[in-house]
């Protein structure tokens, strides 16, 4: 199989979940697959998207909903984009300022994520009643899992995210500073920025993304459809290297974090990077420990498979919040952007893969098995806060 292109520029944002790219580079997995890769640190998600579109980057760590948005022409640019590889599950957290945390504690009944949202609702509604400014909460991008998870959690307690609070977007690396300057009261962001705010004594982590959607998909490896069509063999080689990296991280987590630190990919102290994975990051109104799994899953549970049902869920949220019209053909868009077929082409000879590209989301409270091509495959828990179940939509075509 000849590679169409061997020298690549791949973009990333300094976050713990850029790890598969970093490990593939530092452990020589890209090189082993015939690739010379330059990893480019980018300043914003919009920049990553634009550079992919104009061809300054070959591929990148991207927000999954951003690929859907760009393919639909939201946010100015329209260009079909796709992913055939998810970089992992979970990784987000919601952190609140110390002042807000103290206020929430007065209204808390239990330590559940739903209860935390209800305590927040009490605060939000009393601010409205007293004519105070609404709380300001930051996410990273209008088309991001962060935005949809945060809104989902707020809605679960009857908070209207468009009316009751003020939502802003900030790049991940600016979250902590904005919390310190009191520009914002809370944020929803990926690691290590929750740990960072906590370690600096600026806030408390209130909820993990896992508590809103267990093992929800996070960043994906994204390229333009055009790039994929011009470089299918190179794309496959990148995915093999990333898969090798994801499997390696699963067994060498602390060594992987050291690579992140030593290579200055993420400029925060190593012990902060490690906090959620050693269970040292306290979470919730009662500030208890959480499993490492509720922060990062890099490989197990079919974490890298691009489930079309998950793309459909994002599109449904985009409809719910009126970012896209109600008549958008969700099944068709998801099928074009989430290329489970290409993942199958690359990996089907090496392992058992699920028989279907979609699954109901939200049915399982613990790990479960589903039929695969070479025997059963294990999938993680997938419950939503509030217990709703998302049934995938069948494509008409």
């Amino acid at each position: 199989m000849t590679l169409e292109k061997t020298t690549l520029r791949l973009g990333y944002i300094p976050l713990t979940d850029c790890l598969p790219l970093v490990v593939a580079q530092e452990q020589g997995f890209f090189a082993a697959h015939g690739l010379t890769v330059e990893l480019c640190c980018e300043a914003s998600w919009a920049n990553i998207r634009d550079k992919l579109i104009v061809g300054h980057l070959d591929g990148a760590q991207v927000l999954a909903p951003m690929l859907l948005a760009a393919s639909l022409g939201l946010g100015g640019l329209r260009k079909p984009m796709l992913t055939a590889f998810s970089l992992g599950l979970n990784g987000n957290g919601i952190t609140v300022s110390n002042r807000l945390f103290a206020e929430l504690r007065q209204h808390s009944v239990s330590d559940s994520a739903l209860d935390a949202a209800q305590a927040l609702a009490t605060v939000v509604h009393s601010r409205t009643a007293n004519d105070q400014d609404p709380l300001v909460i930051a996410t990273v991008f209008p088309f991001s899992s962060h935005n949809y998870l945060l809104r989902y959690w707020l809605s679960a307690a009857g908070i209207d995210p468009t009316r009751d609070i003020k939502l802003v977007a900030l790049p991940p690396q600016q979250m902590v500073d904005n919390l310190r300057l009191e520009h914002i009261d809370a944020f929803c962001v990926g690691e290590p920025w929750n740990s960072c705010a906590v370690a600096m004594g600026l806030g408390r982590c209130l909820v993990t993304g896992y508590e809103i959607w267990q093992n929800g998909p996070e960043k994906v490896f994204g390229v333009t459809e055009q790039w994929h069509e011009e470089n299918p063999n190179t794309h496959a080689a990148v995915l093999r290297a990333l898969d090798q990296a994801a499997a390696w991280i699963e067994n060498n987590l602390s060594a992987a974090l050291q690579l992140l630190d030593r290579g200055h990919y993420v400029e925060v102290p190593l012990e902060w990077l490690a906090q959620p994975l050693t269970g040292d990051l306290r979470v919730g109104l009662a500030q208890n420990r959480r499993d490492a799994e509720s922060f990062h899953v890099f490989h197990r549970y079919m974490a890298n498979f691009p489930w079309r049902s998950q793309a459909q869920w994002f599109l449904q949220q985009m409809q719910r919040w009126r970012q896209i019209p109600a008549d958008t053909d969700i099944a068709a868009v998801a099928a074009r952007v989430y290329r489970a077929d290409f993942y199958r082409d690359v990996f089907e000879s090496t392992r058992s893969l699920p028989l279907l590209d979609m699954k109901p989301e939200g049915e399982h409270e613990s790990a479960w098995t589903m039929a695969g091509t070479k025997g059963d495959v294990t999938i993680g828990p997938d419950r939503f806060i509030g217990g709703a179940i998302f049934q995938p939509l069948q494509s008409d075509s």
Partner: protein
Amino acid sequence: MTAKSKALTVMLVDDQPARAALLEQALLDHSYKVIARLSSAEGLAGQVARLQPDVIIIDIESPDRDTLEHMTSLHRDNPRPVVMFSEEGDTKAIERAMRAGVSAYIVDGLNPARVKTIVDVAVARFREYQALRRELEETRTQLADRKQIDRAKGLLMKQRGLDEQQAYNAMRKMAMDRGQRLAEVAGNIIAVFELLDN
């Protein structure tokens, strides 16, 4: 001079002060009014809300771009044209970005002589795009409202044995009594029937 009162107001976002100063001078030479020059992390969202610039010019490498994109995606935050500049932009890349439908412009480096054309074209393109979008949204809302009203009318006719005119009149009266739009009343009726159905 009347031109002065109509001068477009510009906000500049750049982390490199020397470059920003150069661009500001070029803008002033073309009688734009530069109302703020920020570096990133200076609370862009608040500044835009307070100063209401006509145009925002931002370095493509600025971390503030995600903040800006969020603001323009919200209806309540009056969107405005954004001009981006990049030093590594080559002509081909700009062409590709334009074909992809970028409402902003990517400037290759900073050629002061081209600033006026670029800002003017960006503003014109933006206005055109906004008008189109508004039209599309209005059509879509009207269509969705129509469907909703018809469905609620159908439900009332079926469940309450009303004829079409009676169902419509009942809904109109309710809308007037409550000061709601007809489509909102229809939505409530549908929600109630769905609840009873379950």
